[in-house]
């Protein structure tokens, strides 16, 4: 076993390992004269510690019955309350299997063996008797019933890190033995590139990783360079089908092609998404037309800056929205048809008296549109207070029906996230909606033909063409725009 001896010499850490474990298995993947399968079947190693190291060729071992051990205090039966595993799951020693309850005490039952769960003996809420089998675990080959008392001190890495590692969403495949080797050497599985089938991490990969370890944390990346140990390059370069370790030339690094193991996932639409489907299907029955324009916000920007501190001293955050909303309400006073509603057969039009202006909000639950009630009687400051309240409720996911229903007109400030022009969708039973883009600083010509710095925002309106014509929308937009471009005019028309 010449190759084996060379390998041994180049890895200094191996000496440490050899003092505690017998390592005949490790070289099974390196090219040797003997056929590999003979190597693993001929060895049967007894270890001083309770752990067995197996080759990557795990074979199905005996199915062991894991009995419900004595909980103490003379308790003879418990209720199984929750299973943490199901049939077919892989478990490691000390993984949680289930939760049982007895007389005010909850007990977490952990696995005594490594292996695969083959059978669960009890359903949730059934009574389990102490001493009877709880689960069947199919262990790996050459298992000699590890006693749970002689336990190697758990090192720094948590157990979970090693059992479930994901590299960019793919579960890392590794046998329990390999995982334990990684854990005992404080290696994160996500940092080791697997050279086995489907990106599986083999023992050799861990050993390779260890040999290169300088103590620096390597970035987890599937495009990890693999360099075989230098003296081992003396091994015959005839690449057999079993040899998966690439032998690159010194100049060119080999990039490991990532193996894609993702699967499509189908699930039925539930709850909120169903609601969106209903709303949008109804919305797009309305014949929309769009109208866009540009608003010079320079004066409003200055005004808001002046008023921001005053508002904050009153405990309210002042954004541009209160101005947009108030200006829209003033516009609706002149064009009440934009604040109307038409019935399903389009027989009757209802001119709504209250201006309940909705504000599209992006919350954790998704897109919600709470509205500010009766804007026609509120001041800009009052609107700001209401907006603060709605925003707080929105972020905590507590918006109620009262806030979400009854809207008559909507503004969507998509510009706070990004974008310039949009094509908003009208929310029935309303007939118009406006989407506001982001405020950009752009050069514009002023009345004296000079190029000046202007704060420009784009607005995109959509309206129900059955009721509203282009001219009405245009005039409303111009009025709204004039209030914002010249905030002083708002003062004239304030009610």
């Amino acid at each position, binding site marked *: 076993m010449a190759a084996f001896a060379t390998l041994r010499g180049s890895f200094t850490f191996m000496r440490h390992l050899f003092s505690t474990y017998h390592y005949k298995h490790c070289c099974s993947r390196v090219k040797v004269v003997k056929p590999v399968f003979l190597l693993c079947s001929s060895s049967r190693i007894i270890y001083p510690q309770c752990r067995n190291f197996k080759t990557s060729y795990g074979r199905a071992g005996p199915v062991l019955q894991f009995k419900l051990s004595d909980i103490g205090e003379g308790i003879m039966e418990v209720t199984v309350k929750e299973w943490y595993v199901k049939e077919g799951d892989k478990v490691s020693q000390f993984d949680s299997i289930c939760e049982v309850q007895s*007389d005010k005490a909850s007990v977490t039952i952990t696995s005594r063996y490594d292996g695969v769960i083959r059978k669960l003996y009890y359903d949730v809420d059934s009574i389990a008797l102490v001493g009877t089998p709880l689960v069947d675990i199919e262990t790996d080959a050459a298992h000699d019933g590890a006693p749970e008392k002689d336990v190697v001190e758990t090192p720094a890495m948590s157990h979970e890190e090693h059992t479930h590692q994901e590299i960019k969403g793919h579960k890392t495949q590794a046998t329990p033995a390999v995982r334990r080797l990684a854990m005992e050497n404080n290696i994160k599985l996500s940092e080791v590139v697997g050279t086995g089938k489907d990106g599986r991490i083999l023992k050799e990969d861990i050993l390779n990783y260890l040999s290169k370890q300088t103590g620096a944390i390597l970035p987890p990346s599937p495009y990890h360079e693999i360099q075989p140990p230098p003296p081992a390059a003396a091994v015959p370069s005839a690449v057999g089908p079993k040899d998966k370790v690439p032998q690159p030339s010194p100049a060119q690094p080999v990039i490991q092609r990532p193996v894609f193991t993702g699967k499509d996932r189908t699930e039925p639409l539930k709850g909120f998404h169903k609601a969106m489907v209903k709303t949008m299907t109804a919305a797009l029955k309305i014949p929309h037309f769009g109208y866009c324009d540009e608003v010079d916000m320079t004066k409003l920007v200055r005004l808001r800056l002046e008023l921001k501190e005053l508002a904050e001293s009153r405990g309210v955050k002042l954004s541009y929205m209160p101005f947009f909303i108030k200006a829209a309400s003033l516009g609706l006073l002149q064009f009440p048809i934009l604040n109307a509603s038409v019935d399903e057969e389009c027989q009757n039009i209802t001119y709504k008296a209250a201006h309940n202006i909705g504000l599209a909000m992006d919350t954790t*639950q998704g897109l919600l549109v709470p509205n500010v009630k009766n804007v026609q009687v509120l001041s800009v400051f009052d609107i700001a207070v209401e907006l603060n309240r709605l925003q707080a409720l929105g972020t905590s996911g507590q918006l109620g029906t009262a806030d979400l229903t009854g809207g008559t007109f909507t503004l969507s400030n998509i510009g706070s996230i990004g974008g310039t022009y949009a094509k908003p969708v009208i929310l029935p039973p309303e007939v118009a909606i406006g989407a506001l883009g982001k405020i950009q600083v752009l050069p514009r010509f002023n009345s004296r033909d000079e190029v000046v710095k202007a704060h420009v925002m784009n607005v995109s309106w959509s309206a129900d063409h059955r009721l509203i014509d282009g001219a009405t929308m245009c005039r409303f937009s111009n009025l709204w725009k004039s209030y914002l471009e010249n905030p002083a005019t708002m003062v004239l028309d304030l009610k």
Partner: protein
Amino acid sequence: ASVPYSHTERETFLAEHCRPGVVLKSASCDIFQNLAFEDWIHAHVDVEKRSILFMCRNRPAVVIGRHQNPWQECNVPLARERGIPVARRRSGGGTVFHDLGNVNLTFFSSRKRYDRQRNLRIVTRALRQLSPNLDVHATERFDILLNKQFKISGTAAKLGRTGAYHHCTLLCSADRALLSATLRSACAAGIRSNATPSVAAPVRNLRDEDPTLNCDAVMEAVASQYYADFGLSAPAVVVDPTDELSHPGIRRITQELQAWDWVFGKTPAFSLDTSFEVQCEACDTKVNLTVGVKSGAIETCSIESPQDWLPPAMCRELSGLMVGSRFRPSDMAVIFTAFLRANPQSHELENKMHILCEKVVALM
């Protein structure tokens, strides 16, 4: 899941208190932070050689057992309205009402040293030290009774692989009116489930029996009795459950405990069958609601209303939309709003829908 945390760091944390028993007192009155601290100790501290007693008091909160149903155990809408959080602990057992007049004690020990009666003896001895004629004793079911009839303490426990903890409450000066109002469920009668039910018992405050028994005095007495058990005498150590540096990972545990998916979503499957009265042309009629809830989400739903109040088609449509959303007022609001947008109704019908929605939300 546990957080990577070296063995030496853990030992250093309690290193200066190298005694077989340590008393920790929480600096926080937040139920979630304190529950997270318990969790953290259970997961990260080696109690093989050193036992721990953790004491805390919390602002008003309802704490239900691991496998209980919050809607069955307390009045969830009322608690929400009053700003009283509902929390689910990791150990089993029944529901408790916490407030600043209630002392919480958690005894951490190795599984070998797990002995609930011994812990309760420490408590009763401490109480008798403060008030020598006090009639307190621990029962077989690990309750502590005052004057042989009033329950002043309830117990729950959790056993892990190597460590275990036993926690109990102690009623010193709790607000009994708030307690009974909050723990009275609005719809328990209609709930059918396999969740662990609570066993109600008459309660009394220790302070009503002996005015000197306030929370601080009681905590001090229990702490010194605990230390005495180990043959020591020392002050309690104040700990801050929000300190992430000393307790890495505790912030995440706190957030997990506060999540709706844990508090409400972990409820064992149940069905709720109830009806509410609605006004219909000067007379009152009943609307029946039946929901099946699993993991906090509505699996089945049926609304039955008299024909002249709401058309059955509307009821069917609304209940169909409710399936799949969580049993939660905000989710209901979204569903309801979408329903109204998609199905424009006459003013009258819309009002009735609003009433229906209000009644349904009042259950959640």
